[in-house]
């Protein structure tokens, strides 16, 4: 011991320059208020008379007194405390300053506030010691015990792919088709110790596992399932698979849910998919038209049959008379509207008024001229 102390003063002398002595204070202060001339002091107003009876500014005074107290203490490591005013007794202040520092250090590093959604993982000199529940907790001070707080309630979300059109996340399905997929994974921390100590990069791991699980599940389903009906089952399978993998890593992570936000055909083939739904619409249109026509046909048949039935009912009651009546009524209706020629005798050649017919034909549409020729009778 003696030998060490023996050369101590020499060292002290060596370092005297920067630490103590007349012409300096702590480094920073030396720049600010090192001189004793008033005008050079940046803290005093240059316009006002500063030097005079007032002497140095308040800060400078403070520094000076600090330096004096320093001198009494004989310099020391607490260079930063030069600014403290001396005690009334004029004794050294720095032991008290150190004491305050120690208390501050104890208070600041021993009390830990753990929020309601957090857990605090305490390590004692690197070794896991305990997990703090929410509330204020006391630990050993800083270098001995360290606390890392982990938010265990917060649901973190990872988005893979995007719903916007410009970027596509193409995924192969089991039937070798391709879909554009966007999904999100929600997860939180189940076990803060495992989360902190097991994986080197938990967040990236969750993302990679999500991609892997999603793709392997999609590789076992068909395009149609992925596009529509199978979505919720895919989500469940992915969730399950991710949980299995992450449990295999002992990651302390819980998958809360997987949500497929978008599963669409890629834009390159989107038109063809639209054509399919258009075809479905068209087919539906065909069916609707056919059903309408069928209704019409059936209703017409029913109507006509019913009409016939009604008439037939009456006809059965008086067949001969009804039949005659209907005949005459019809003939009346028919013959009252047409030009009639009655030719007496069976051996008379009927005279057809051909010019007359021609004139009429010209009146009518040319295409229908032929019908004007019709002769007949029963």
């Amino acid at each position: 011991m003696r030998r060490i102390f023996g050369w101590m003063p020499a060292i002290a002398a060596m370092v005297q320059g920067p630490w103590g002595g007349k012409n300096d204070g702590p480094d920073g202060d030396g720049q600010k208020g090192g001189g004793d001339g008033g005008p050079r002091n940046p803290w005093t107003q240059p316009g006002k008379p500063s030097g005079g009876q007032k002497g140095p500014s308040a800060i400078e005074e403070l520094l000076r007194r600090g330096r004096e107290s320093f001198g009494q203490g004989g310099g020391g490591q607490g260079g930063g405390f030069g600014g403290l005013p001396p005690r009334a007794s004029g004794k050294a202040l720095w032991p008290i300053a150190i004491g305050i520092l120690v208390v501050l250090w104890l208070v600041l590093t021993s009390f830990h506030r753990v929020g309601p959604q957090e857990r605090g993982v305490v390590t004692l000199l690197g070794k896991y010691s305990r997990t703090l529940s929410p509330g204020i907790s006391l630990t050993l001070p800083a270098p001995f015990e360290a606390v890392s707080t982990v938010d265990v309630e917060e649901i973190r979300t990872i988005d893979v792919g995007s719903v916007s059109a410009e970027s596509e996340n193409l995924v192969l399905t089991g039937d070798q088709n391709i879909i554009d997929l966007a999904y999100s994974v929600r997860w939180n921390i189940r076990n803060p110790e495992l989360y902190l100590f097991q994986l080197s990069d938990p967040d990236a791991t969750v993302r990679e596992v999500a991609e892997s699980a999603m793709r392997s599940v999609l590789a076992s389903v068909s395009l149609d399932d992925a596009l529509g009906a199978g979505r919720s089952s895919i989500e469940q399978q992915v969730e399950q698979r991710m949980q299995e993998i992450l449990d295999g890593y002992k990651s302390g992570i819980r998958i809360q849910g997987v949500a497929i936000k978008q599963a669409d055909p890629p834009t390159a083939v989107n038109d063809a998919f639209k054509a399919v739904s258009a075809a479905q619409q068209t087919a539906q249109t065909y069916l609707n038209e056919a059903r309408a026509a069928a209704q019409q046909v059936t209703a017409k048949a029913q109507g006509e049959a019913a009409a016939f039935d009604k008439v037939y009912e009456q006809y059965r009651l008086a067949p001969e008379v009804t039949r005659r009546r209907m005949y005459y009524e019809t003939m009346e209706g028919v013959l009252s509207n047409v030009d009639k020629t009655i030719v007496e005798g069976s051996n008379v050649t009927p005279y057809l008024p051909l010019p007359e017919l021609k004139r009429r034909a010209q009146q009518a549409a040319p295409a229908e001229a032929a019908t004007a020729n019709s002769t007949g009778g029963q």
Partner: protein
Amino acid sequence: MMTLLRHPVALALIALLALIILGSTIAIVPETKQGVIVRFGDPKEIINRYQANENFGHTGAGIIWRWPFIDQIVWIDKRVLSVEMERQQVLSTDQLRLQVDAFARYRIVDPLRMYIAAGNEDRVSDALRPILGSALRNELGKRPFAALLSPERGQVMQNIETGLNRVARQYGAEIVDVRIKRADLPDGTPLESAFTRMRTAREQEALTIRAQGAKQAQIIRAEADANAARIYAESYGKDPQFYDFYRAMQSYRYTFAPDRTGQTNIILSPDNEFLRQFQGRR
């Protein structure tokens, strides 16, 4: 002692020296690290080595003593590490190409071997990366394209993992998991042809749907016609003769209706049934 108190600078220096010596005598081993104590280049001891099924708080973590300036500690990560493979193009047996991204997770279980063989974790990753790539290419290249997508992938992964583990063990590492992250068709022709196939499949589907619709529509119409025929037959079949007459009457009215286009001239013979009463005979 008094001299010392009069020279706080000396005191501070002593404290500093003590701190340095203390700092180099003790070492704090965190839970996430394992270490190899190396004395003059000679690895002496392994601290906080990974054990399966260990519980945190009962591992080798904590404070340890060592010889100052003599013992060096090489820190090695104890956690699960990741090695990511560069994109690989895999050619399946049916000559289809697949672009594959894979990753492996590993953990260093033998820090000493790892220190001797590689030095640090990065070099282990560097060593594993190409091997993962080639193992993947070899294993996937033995299979037809469809099998790469199917659930059989699980077995493929198992084989790759086994192969990779053999190499990893030389570096004191253990493969935890190997997974294909992405498996895509390469850009360009393969992707385009897949799109074309999808497009044509859809077009075919669209045509089928339309044709099926037309067919259904036709059937519906035919059924209605048949139904109507049945209704007519049921009704008219009761008296075909009367039906003939009844229908003829309807037909005349329709045919000679005044709003029909074309004029009608009728030349009647007195023998006509309608004119029977013209001649007043009985």
